[in-house]
């Protein structure tokens, strides 16, 4: 049995969402002729090799035919990244995320008991995000709160976001930082990128900043039950980041005296990462060393990232793991992390 911790779906167009918007926002959408970008802020240009040829499923029947049926999937967690970069109107963003969550509930979760979903929440207004988590938090089919790893001008460890993280933890929801997001935020410390290649690579750079922020800014002592999923952001960077983070913390701990243990301890206690994309060496011996350094059997959860295509790294990873480790990555890590019963 397998759990897929990152499969994608998207509304075919904004018309799909009109029944889930109230009259004011329907008029707003229709009056301005607003649309949803198929490339989602440059993340998946329809012709790019990384986007996959199948296209993002728009209906549950399509997902069943292409991914679920005939597979050994016990669960698949749907991540709809459609609202990541649609609008900078905070009230519209709140209405849009609410509409997407209702669409997920009505047109997906109601129709296949294998499906779970990340709830999308506003990023511009943390109070509205908390309200949406409170509204949906008791529906156990939502397993996580989905946030773009490329967020706004402050990182998620900042106290501005603590109420959002707190609400998720209070409902037992994982917080999932998923690749891509706000194109207006510089994706690297040296500013904007100039190519799709740089943008694609930047998710693994941005996520290290988010991990650093969440640990250094003391989130996990305040919220000891909080769990963070890093989706589609890679994981091969973990050993180098954590080696340096542990080392520097020993000298610079005084600035963050609430950090009570080595950063790497927080990381392996509170974070899990999805297996797509997997940037790993091809040589079998080097691959085995990388798996050990990354502590892959503890950290990773299988994901198809359907329909996106990141090459064969994740398959090679699973092939390099022994039976128990492969089972952990395919199923048990996610079952425990998301509290999913078989």
């Amino acid at each position, binding site marked *: 049995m397998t759990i897929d911790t990152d499969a994608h779906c998207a509304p075919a167009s904004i018309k799909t969402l009109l029944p889930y918007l109230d009259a004011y926002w329907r008029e707003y959408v229709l009056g301005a002729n607003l649309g949803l970008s198929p490339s989602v802020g440059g993340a998946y240009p329809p012709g790019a090799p990384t986007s996959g040829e199948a296209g993002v499923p728009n209906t549950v029947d399509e997902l069943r035919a292409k991914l679920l049926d005939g597979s050994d999937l016990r669960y698949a967690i749907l991540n709809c990244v459609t609202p990541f970069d649609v609008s900078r109107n905070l009230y519209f963003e709140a209405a849009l995320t609410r509409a997407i969550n209702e669409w997920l509930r009505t047109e997906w979760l109601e129709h296949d008991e294998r499906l779970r979903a990340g709830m999308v929440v506003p990023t511009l207004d943390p109070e509205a995000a908390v309200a949406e988590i409170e509204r949906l938090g008791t529906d156990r089919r939502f397993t996580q709160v989905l946030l773009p790893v490329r967020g706004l001008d402050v990182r998620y460890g900042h106290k501005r976001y603590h109420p959002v993280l707190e609400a998720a933890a209070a409902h037992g929801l994982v917080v999932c930082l998923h690749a891509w997001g706000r194109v207006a935020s510089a994706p690297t410390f040296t500013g904007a990128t100039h190519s799709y290649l740089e943008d694609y690579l930047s998710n693994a750079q941005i996520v290290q900043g988010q991990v650093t922020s969440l640990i250094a800014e*003391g989130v996990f002592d305040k919220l000891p039950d909080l769990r963070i999923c890093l989706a589609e952001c890679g994981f091969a960077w973990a050993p180098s980041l954590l080696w340096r983070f542990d080392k520097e913390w020993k000298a610079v701990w005084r600035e963050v*005296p609430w950090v009570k243990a080595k950063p790497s301890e927080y990381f392996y206690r509170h974070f899990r990462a999805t297996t797509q994309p997997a940037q790993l060496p091809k040589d079998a011996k080097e691959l085995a060393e990388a798996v050990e350094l990354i502590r892959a059997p503890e950290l990773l959860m299988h994901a198809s990232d359907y329909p996106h295509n990141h090459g064969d790294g994740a398959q090679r990873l699973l092939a390099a793991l022994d039976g128990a480790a492969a089972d952990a990555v395919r199923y048990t890590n996610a079952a425990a992390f998301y509290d999913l019963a078989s």
Partner: protein
Amino acid sequence: MRIVVARAEDFAPGDRRIVEVDRRSIGVFRVGDRFYAINNHCPHQGGPLCLGRTAPWALSSGPGEFQVSEEHALLACPWHGWEYDLATGQSFLGPGEAPVRSYQVSVEPGEALTDDPDLRMAGRAPGPYVAETFPVRVEDEYVVVDTQPVGRDRRTER
């Protein structure tokens, strides 16, 4: 060997003097009314420990919450920031980190509570290094350091 460092009245609280004795360099510190002497050699990688900053213990109950102790009881090596207890030479890792296994911390019976490292260290665990410390006395208004090293947990007050 006993070395006269300075007249006590010339040695103000917060001051330090580095004295060269044989081929050894020893830093003498005055914190409040207490004198401390510690080897000017960081056991980590040999940095000039006594050129570092002194610092108080820092405590936190959560993000944005800061408390510090009144006295500067710690000395940080300028090279890599390893911090040492001025009184005992004991290094400390970050909060909550387990000590390196080969090093044992013992608390001697009858020791005053203020010298108990479990109480003094503010949630931080003893590190693997111990810098050499030396007794300092004030004799006839002169500050005198004795180069016979002492173990941890000993301190001479004025």
